[in-house]
């Protein structure tokens, strides 16, 4: 009779999830296959734990209070004293109930067929969900998110995911921004997701007759159909190289006034950008530099405009010029005649 699992008193902050336990597990599992040197152990711990962890963990394992886990086999090597080579703990109730909660997440369901989802539901039948989707209300999410329930979209998503996991090129029938259809061959690099847009984009590189081209971003919602390509992916292709977005050399600089809680609002709002902030006591203001991807310039511009006069945009000049144009144009719309509009946002 299976014991009923409950989610009372669950905690995220437990040592079994900790980096030290993970590091020691890594050492012991490796040491069960082959004797390890000190250098091996330092390397394994560094890959699992924090900056100074190795200097604390390794001496405890070799010559300290945890040394009953290892046995010295040579002058400078150690092997595991444990009989089992796999020390993977069973999934905890927290982990299982989190997975159970995900079964109601439309995005999570994209990864599976209906049959697989049924199988998952059966396996997690006894587990209570950690939360319900209705516990959360995403009040400012855009209304035109991707159609996760549509069969065509699910098929595209799963094929794109296959291309990524199996490192294959992808043929895609794509509908461009102006409704024009095209066929593309690309090498997928990463699937990018935005919670605000509630959309997936495929970051990829164009690929034509076996030759690697330039970075290409495809909205998943606009891929009408796709399949894996038989053209082999060149060995030299490193998909990590292409996901690093190019940051503008010169950041946008803003001055934040000490009023209307502007500092905190700005710091939270722009927390997704790399930024640097300095307080200027003479003016009781903060100078903030925001580093951004050039492809996000318009988005950043309208975000900054939404703060109104509690921030002042100082530069760079090309950015400031766009702000001036819009603000002056707004003044003209309110107080003067306007003939036409050129810019877009």
């Amino acid at each position, binding site marked *: 009779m299976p014991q009923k699992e409950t989610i009372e008193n669950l905690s995220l902050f437990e040592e079994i999830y900790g980096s030290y336990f993970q590091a020691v597990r890594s050492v012991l599992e490796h040491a069960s296959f082959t004797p390890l040197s000190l250098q091996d152990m330092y390397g394994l711990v560094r890959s699992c734990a924090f900056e100074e962890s190795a200097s604390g963990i390794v001496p405890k394992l070799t010559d300290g209070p945890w040394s009953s886990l290892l046995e010295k086999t040579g002058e400078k090597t150690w092997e595991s*004293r444990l009989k089992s080579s796999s020390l993977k703990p069973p999934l905890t109730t927290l982990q299982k109930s989190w997975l159970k909660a995900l079964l109601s997440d439309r995005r999570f369901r994209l990864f599976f067929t209906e049959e697989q989802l049924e*199988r998952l539901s059966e396996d997690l039948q006894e587990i209570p969900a950690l939360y319900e989707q209705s516990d959360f209300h995403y009040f400012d999410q855009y*209304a035109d998110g991707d159609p996760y329930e549509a069969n065509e979209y699910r098929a595209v998503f799963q094929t794109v995911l296959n291309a990524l*996991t199996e490192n294959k090129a992808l043929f895609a029938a794509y509908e461009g921004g102006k409704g024009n259809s095209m066929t593309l061959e690309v090498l997928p690099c990463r699937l990018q997701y935005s*919670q605000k847009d509630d959309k997936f984009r495929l970051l990829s590189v164009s690929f034509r007759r076996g030759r690697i081209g330039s970075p290409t971003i495809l909205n998943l919602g606009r891929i009408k159909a796709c399949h894996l390509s038989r053209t082999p992916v060149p060995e030299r292709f490193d998909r990590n190289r292409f*996901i690093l977005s190019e940051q503008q050399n010169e950041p946008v600089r803003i001055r934040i006034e000490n009023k209307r809680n502007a500092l905190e609002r700005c710091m939270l709002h722009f927390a*997704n950008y790399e930024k640097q902030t300095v307080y200027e006591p003479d003016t009781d203001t903060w100078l903030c530099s925001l580093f951004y991807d050039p492809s996000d310039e318009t988005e950043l511009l309208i975000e900054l405009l939404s703060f109104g006069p509690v921030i002042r945009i100082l530069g760079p000049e090309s950015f400031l010029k766009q702000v001036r144009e819009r603000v002056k144009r707004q003044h003209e719309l309110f107080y003067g005649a306007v003939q036409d509009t050129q810019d877009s946002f």
Partner: protein
Amino acid sequence: MSDFQELIKNFDRVRDYMRQFFLYGFKVRGEFAAKSGRTYDNERRRIENYLADYIHSDYTSKGKQVSIRMDSKQILSNPLYAAWKSKSFTDRDLLLHFFLLDLLSDGNARTVPELGDAISLHYGEELDSQIIRLKCREYEKLGILLSRKAGKSLAYRLAPPLRLEEAPLYDTLLNAVKFSSETAPFGFTGSTILDREFLSNDLFCWKHYFMVHTLEDEVLLTILTAMREHRFLSFENHSTRSGKSVVLEGLPLQIFVSTQTGRRYLCVYFAPKRRFNCLRLDCIFKPKLLAVCPEYERYREKLRQNLPHCWGVSFGGRSRMETLSMKLYIKEACEGHIIGRLQREGRGGELLRIRENVWLYTGSFFDTNEMLPWIKSFTGRILDLQCTNQAVLDKVTADLEAMYQMYGKEEEDDAAERNH
């Protein structure tokens, strides 16, 4: 600093410092007045260890500024999860963890005395039965061990793996975990599932990712327990503006989430005031479960009925409904995307085409004051604004005028400032 420890016992110790370094990053040692300089040094060093790749230090006349700097588009997995993986433990905790996993890996159940004997025999460690018993109980609560009666005592065995862990489906599940560990509530849990497999995300990346809010997840877990059990909740609410803290009691109903800032709010019903209120999750501390509310579903339903009238997190003041209209100039031939913006960002407001290139957006909400940032994002296109709340209208008009003074008239000052 010989007594420096990387690990911590209490998560709240690191929560505030990490948030300050991540969000602000301009404070120097002396400005962390709430704690001693030595506490600051320890917390700073700890965070520098957890997030070594993202720490920046700058030196100013007032001292060293430490900041956590990262571009969320370049991040594959939230580095702040490191804080959750830093709980301290005793030597015995660690030894027992691996002894139990090793001894019970054969699938057989063992009583505490049997475990004690086996530990002594195989690993040469003499551990008190009570300590082994406590650890077994703790692991049973976590779901790692299962117990059954064996005569007068309990025998423990490892919880069996999920059936799907043996199937090819598990690889698909782990791909879905790579995604969900950065996008679903309590994503940290997903990161521990990946750790368990020595895996990390290599498939996805993110845009508009607000990582700092993971620091509120333990508080959120207690709040969700209260919601699931339909209980009232008491908690401390810290005001970031006044620095003051008050203890409040209310009925927790829903978590409001901003996808544009990552901020999360607890929506509470305060019975004495007969009001719904949203309070920032990062300002809530020490939540405690109170009595069950028999009418929980009724209040939840009331909230559901109110949601279409909330622009954001405000339920308004005395006037129960305000209407705002904004007339915009949109050159339809080449600016269809602006119409798209109004449709996807308008939160149920009505959009009408008045005539060629002129569109009217109208929305009725509890508090139109919350709409102002959105309205200002259309700067350069607004032909006219009307609002039933005159104060809102005055504010946005004054803001647009101030911006004109700032950018339209003061170009010379700008040039001087840039040169400076």
